């Protein structure tokens, strides 16, 4: 290779990154939430152009009201595309909103999301973290029924909860059941509602060095909530094209026709243009927020010197208390001994006195005897 001297090779670095990512492949986790029958399964199978998820077994419908819980179903698939490997995880939530009373039906979903963050956190702390199992949700699609009205209270509650934890992407399913004009009005009402309730939704980064990209990103961002048509069926249009779509007597609703729905924009957002952005937002914002919150709750702070000071003070305090306790014990014991010693002294004095008395008696006797031995001397003082 004989490149000019002044070319260093720094300009190759993005290509090196490209190569590394191509080699490593990617993990991508997508979650779908919405009432049953909203078209979640159909959408997933349409998006990934494969039967990722079996359709619901209608036999199970009788058990439903009894179970009264939202199930969380995980599908893991490996997809290879042009030599690029993706470990895809799809999280479906059948049973959501199926009950008469659906208050708190979102709790298991939210718990699941948090649990994935916690699991990652625990694994990340380990000494060996070579095989981390990562199921952090990168994108959460919330399916809004094409009622044409506005968001239902349940939608608002759930979206609020989801939006504070993951990249939330609102989707209007079955866009073929709503006319263009109605759809525009519906979308606007939904956007107003999202704004009014401060619901956090994923906004793709728009600014780019290249004008075309910026324009495309703007179009994607403005299409939210994404109205989609789901279908795995290949149908033939009146003008003879084979497309994925829904065949009606009055025409064909095409999945990949931008005039008919926002499927392509949503696919761009999810995969073709903003998948990396979804992944990094999840890792750098949602996960970091979760982790920081959790650690703070555990009592952690980065303000180490402060904690250290308190900690050291507490340790010293405990040691001092122990010493003090012993000093007191020693003191009481000492005073007991002192009393005992005093008693001994008293006893000694008593005994001394006793002996002295005896001694005096002896001395007196001796004197008497002396006197008896020398009667002259002895008798005179007596008489």
């Amino acid at each position, binding site marked *: 290779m004989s490149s000019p001297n002044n070319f*260093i090779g720094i300009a190759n670095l993005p290509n090196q990154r490209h190569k590394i990512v191509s080699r490593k492949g990617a993990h991508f986790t997508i979650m779908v939430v919405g009432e049953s029958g909203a078209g979640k399964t159909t959408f997933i199978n349409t998006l990934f152009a494969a039967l990722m998820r079996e359709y619901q077994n209608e036999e199970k419908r009788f058990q439903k009201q009894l179970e009264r819980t939202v199930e969380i179903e995980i599908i893991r698939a490996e997809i290879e595309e042009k030599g690029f490997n993706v470990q895809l995880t799809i999280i479906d939530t059948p049973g959501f909103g199926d009950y008469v009373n659906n208050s708190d039906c979102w709790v298991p979903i939210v718990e699941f999301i948090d649990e994935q963050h916690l699991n990652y956190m625990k694994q990340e702390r380990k000494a060996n973290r070579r095989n981390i199992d990562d199921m952090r949700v990168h994108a959460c699609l919330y399916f809004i029924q094409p009622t044409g009205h506005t968001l239902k209270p349940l939608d608002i509650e759930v979206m609020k909860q989801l939006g504070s934890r993951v990249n939330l992407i609102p989707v209007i399913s079955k866009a073929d059941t709503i006319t263009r004009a109605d759809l525009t009005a519906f979308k606007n009402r939904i956007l107003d509602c999202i704004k009014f309730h401060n619901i956090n939704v994923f906004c793709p980064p728009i600014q780019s060095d290249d004008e075309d990209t910026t324009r495309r990103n703007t179009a994607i961002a403005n299409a939210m909530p994404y109205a989609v048509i789901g279908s795995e069926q290949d149908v033939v249009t009146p003008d003879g094209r084979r497309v994925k779509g829904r065949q009606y007597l009055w025409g064909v609703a095409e999945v990949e026709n931008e005039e008919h729905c926002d499927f392509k924009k949503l696919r761009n957002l999810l995969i073709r243009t903003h998948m990396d952005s979804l992944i990094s937002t999840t890792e750098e914002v949602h996960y970091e927020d979760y982790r920081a919150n959790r650690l703070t709750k555990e009592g952690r702070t980065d303000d180490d010197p402060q904690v250290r000071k308190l900690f050291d003070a507490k340790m010293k305090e405990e040691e001092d208390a122990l010493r003090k306790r012993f000093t007191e014990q020693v003191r009481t014991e000492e005073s007991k001994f002192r009393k005992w010693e005093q008693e001994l002294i008293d006893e000694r004095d008593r005994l001394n006195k006793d002996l002295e008395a005896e001694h005096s008696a002896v001395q007196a006797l001796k004197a008497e005897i002396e006197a008896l031995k020398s009667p002259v001397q002895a008798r005179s003082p007596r008489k």
Partner: protein
Amino acid sequence: MSAEVEQPQIPIVKKKPNCFVGFANLPNQVHRKSIKKGFQFTLMVVGESGLGKSTLINTLFNTSVYPNKEHLEAEEPPKTIKIETITTNLEENGIKLKLNVIDTPGFGDFVNNETSWKPILEEIETRFDLYLEQENKVNRKKIVDERVHACLYFIAPTGHSLKPLDIEFMKRLHHRVNLIPVIAKSDLLTEEEVAGFKARIMEDISYNKIQIYRPPIYENDDPETLQENKEIVLRMPFAVVGCDKEIEMKKKKVRGRQYPWGIIDVDNEDHCDFIKLRQMLIRTHMEELREYTNEVLYENYRSNKLIASGNEFGDGGNPLARFEEEKRAHEAKMTKMEAEMKMVFQQKVQEKKNKLMQSDADLHARHKEMKEKLVNQRRELEETKRQLESGARPGTPEKSRKGKGYFK
């Protein structure tokens, strides 16, 4: 907190989409983002002074990372190994690179260089520690990576083989940093000498089980890449020539060193391995070096450190966990202290008790003894007295004790 992470085992099914979904675009997305974010690399240079380290860095990055030596002529040789970091911001075709070069002046320059590797290993590990500390923070949005991603080790062009210092250094550092040995100032050796020298160096390296950085081989590499990497490996250790000044050669400006017998052109692959070194270090493997540092060298260092500190199951470096640990140690210490104090205390109490009981017993025993003596004496005296009174001859009376107190 439980250390085990339980994840349900979910079977992975292979799926083949029946049309292009677009996943294969992800590398392009990352490519685009990386341009926006820019790059960062930390390179360390080690070798005796005067081997051309600064010159080679300038030549590699075609920039005056190190200002011209002329001004710094009167520099005093350092007494200890210093660690000097210079940061340079480079840009090429809109791609930004923040380059940190760490020089270690003093290495190998002393009479005794036995521990020359030490401050350098410490520097590398300190940088790992710094990263680990940041990783464990609650808020880590501003994490900076100052880990050493590669170390160029300059071998003096002796033409013999590796010196003990070279071997010692490489053995001590190869598990902590991507080692790239280079033969400095290879223009001092003939082509033949270089070949022999390289062969002996590689023998020394493999004999001493030193791990030097080699371009990794991946199964999906295309034949062109494989060939390129093979050629790179064949040239190791790179025999380099540094020169940051251009000279005129055949009406063309070249970076080279002019001798009466000719000009050595740095950028000529027939003259030296500079091109191959730059190829690997910058053009094809700079990001790979970072990956390997992050995923293998750093991870190994981190897990060894955590295991050694009994922190295998996480909470590693968590200050609170550290406190927990210290607290446990402290409690153990307190328990021990308490037990010891108690033992000493009880022992002392017992001793004192025994002593007092002994005194008490002694006191009474002695009292009894004396009392008995006195009583006996008295009885004898009374007897004598009686006899005397009744006219009988008395016996010799006993001498009585003097003094007031009988016990002290």
